[in-house]
């Protein structure tokens, strides 16, 4: 399976700080919501067919390193 690396093709400004459900090839955004459980409930029996990501804001640089 070819996996899409360029998430900018499917993730936009409206998805920032939200949970998105992507296909396993990361080539299509299926749905999004503020809360992961709400999103997964909406997807019902197919919820585990998708991969979930919380989208970072695009107007910030991030340094995580929680040490």
């Amino acid at each position: 399976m070819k996996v899409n690396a360029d998430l900018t093709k499917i993730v936009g400004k409206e998805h920032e700080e939200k949970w998105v459900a992507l296909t396993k090839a990361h080539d299509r955004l299926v749905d999004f919501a503020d809360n992961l459980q709400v999103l997964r409930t909406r997807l019902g029996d197919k919820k585990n067919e998708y991969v979930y990501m919380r989208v970072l804001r695009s107007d910030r640089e991030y340094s995580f390193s929680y040490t």
Partner: protein
Amino acid sequence: MMRTRWKEYDYKIQAGPGMSWVHRPLINIEVRALEGNEKAPILAMIDSGTDGTVFHADIAQTLGIDEARCKRGVLGGIGSLEGFYTEVKIVVPDFNVSFRAPVFFGKKLPMDGLLGQAAFFPHFKIRFEKHKNKFYLAAV
């Protein structure tokens, strides 16, 4: 001597400040509670600067983990993050690798997950080749 079998990944491209592109090493993993059948497939970031494993608290909620039964804590670093600790099972489907790991669920983590040194790194050899925007994993 056995040759290492590396799996190649592209850095994921995400939007950054000033119309820039940011490349991040994200991989598919599954987070599972130790009890019950729920699992959360997420795209987590490999982060060599993080000591342990950190996930967004929404993942604990969807797995049915009772926050009230977990040890509360605060992670330091650049800024701080409130949350709670518990143990989960982490599955890396590309390698059929799974392991139990103590993790911190942060309530305001801006992303879904960080795979740090303590739990994730001992299971893999990891090569970052940023000049090619590729990274490589091999199970150990």
